[in-house]
Each structure stands twice: as C-alpha cells, then as structure tokens.
C-alpha cells in the first residue's frame, strides 16, 4: 500500500481539534489497518491511502472527529 503523503487528498479526514489522544477506536475498527496515531501529535491520521469506505471509523469516533469522503461514483 502506498503511504499517504498528501493528507489533504485522502478520503479519511480527521479533525485534530476533536480527536482524543488516548482513543484508538477508529484504528481498532478499520478492517484495512490504514489508520494510525501520529506520534508527534497523538492524533489519528490516514497512514496508507487505501480505503473501502466502509465507515466504521466515522461511526465509532466518540467525538465525531472523522469524516469519510466517499467518491461521487460510489455514493
């Protein structure tokens, strides 16, 4: 899987102001293990640019910090 270098282009957008440092709910529910914690900020981010748009990360986030941008053709 390609590393997601351009974080603005990835489908899973994390609102860092809402993301809780001790929480790993989104990372645990992701079936592709593409989410990770940024060691510098302690916030979740999309480490690998691969997504099934299955949405548990968005649903499980206790603070609604995650938005998954579903491509137009999959809506």
């Amino acid at each position, binding site marked *: 899987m390609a590393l997601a270098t351009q974080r603005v282009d990835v489908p899973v957008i994390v609102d860092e102001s809402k993301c*809780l*440092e*001790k*929480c790993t*709910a989104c990372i*645990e529910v992701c079936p592709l293990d593409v989410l990770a914690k940024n060691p510098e900020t302690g916030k979740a981010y999309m480490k690998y640019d691969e997504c099934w748009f299955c949405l548990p990360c968005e649903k*499980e986030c*206790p*603070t609604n910090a995650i938005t998954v941008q579903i491509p137009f053709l999959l809506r």
Partner: protein
Amino acid sequence: MFADTDSELNEWLEMLRSPDLSDRLVAVKTLQHLGDEEALEPLIVALQDESTAVQKLAVTALWELANPKAVPALIECLVSSNEEIRDEALSALGELISPDHLMLLLDAVHRDKVNMQLSILILLRKIHDAQSLPYVLPFFESDQAALREAAVTTLRYLNQVERCQPAIALMSDADGTVRRATALTLGHLADAEVVPALCQALTSDADWQVRRNAAKSLALHANAEAVPALQTALSDNHWQVRKFTLQALQKTPDDRALPALIKALADEYSDVRRDAAIALGKLKNPAALNALQQSLDDPDRDVCIFTQRAIQSIQESTPETSNA
C-alpha cells in the same frame, strides 16, 4: 492471563470515573468494544454522566452487552432531554425487552412525559400482549395527536384483541395521521362492526391515504357488505385508492362490480389495470371476456400476463366457452 485482562478492565473502569471528559469518552468507548459483563454496573452509572456524549455511548455499550438487567436504567433514558439519547435508548430497548418486562413498561407509561409515553407505546408492540390494552386505551383521548396515533398503531400489534369500539371512534379524528393509522388498525380487528366505518372512510374521507388504508383493511375483512362502497371508490381521484379497492374486490367477487371493473381495465395507471384484470379473473363471469380480450394488447407486460390468466380462469370455469 486473566489477571492481565482484569487489570486492563479495571484501568478503563477507573478512567470512566475520571473528572476529565475526554478520559471518560475514551473509557466508555473502550468498554463498549471490550464487551465485558463486569462493566455492566459502571456503564449503568455512566448513564447519569454530566456529558450527554458519555451518556449516549453508555447506552450504545449497554445495547451491545445485551444484558436485560440494563432495561430499567435504559427506560429512564427515554425521558432524557437529548433526542439522540432517547432514540438510542429506544433502539436498544427494542432489542432488549421481553415479555418479562411488561409490568415495568406498563408502570412507566403512567409517567406524565410525552416522550416516555410515545416510546413505551412503541415498545409494547414488541411484546404483543393483550394485557396492555387497558393501558393503551386512555391514550385514544389524549390531546396529543402523536400519542393517539401511537396508541391506535400499538392496538394493531396486540394479540387476541378482536373488538375495540373506541378505535372505531378514532376514524372521525380531526388529525389525518391518526385516521390513517386507525384505518389500518381496523383491518386487523376481527369485528364486522368496523366494516361500515371503513366503508364510510373509503368513500368520504378527505385524506386519500386514509381512503387507501381503508381499502387495504377492507381487503383483509373480505366482507360482501363493503361491495357498494368499493364500487364507488373505483371512481376515486387517486390511483392508489383505486388499486387497493380492486385488491379488496378480488377478495369479495361480486357481479354488481362488473361494469366498474371493466371500466378500470382502461385506467390510466397500469397497476390499476392489472388489479382490475385479476379481479375479473376471480369473478369468473364470461361477460368480462370481450373486455379482457382487448386488454391483451395492453402496453404493460404485467397487465397482458394477468389478463391472459384471467381469461384462462374464466374459460376453465365455463367449459362451453373454452370449447367454442
């Protein structure tokens, strides 16, 4: 191994009592994922948390634990001022309640809170117990239309209730949604007294959905007394009403309806034409054959198929026609 699991659980339970909101959020979310029964009591306590976010997650966690011991605490959440918590608790209770909780629900229905009463009326539909009837009936006279509608809908789900005079009176309710629900409920009562009320609604109610629901219910009753009203309803402005009226006539084949049924074969809507063909097939009157033959060229494939079946059905019931 077990000690590690216990210490991990205790760590999260401790965090659930933290003064820091983000800690409590993380703890309740993690406890939801762990699904450990030991967390039941602390999660019930978390339903009283000062943060509505924690309360909502606690409801979700208790729903996933699926332990009936949480039911009384979840019922209390039905009066929460937060709509999301009420909705989540209602969804959770919908899966957790059983007939054992009937008395608990019936006690709660007396509480003078509209949200609670609405939710309890919905939950009573899951239990289907006729013992609820005396508790449901007072809501027919509520000044809140939502409560009257919920109550008459609940009546539909109660087993062994065959007669209910107060429900018939609701057919004259001022609120359209109440009359719609009532029209559907009357179809499930095994009482011939409801037929005149349904006929009245079918022919004269101002709301087309009430008329459609009355037709649906008359199809369930299959009572020949309704045929004149059904004939009148075949001229209704709304095609949905005409369609369900035809379905009711399929259940009560009557030669008096023959001219109206033939006319319906030329209806603007294919669903209506199809149900008219089916109704003529059930009537088994050879006088319909000519009209049906013309419908074989209908632009809608469905109509052609059912017309063909209707012709076949009539021919089979009158051997001399099939031999001709």
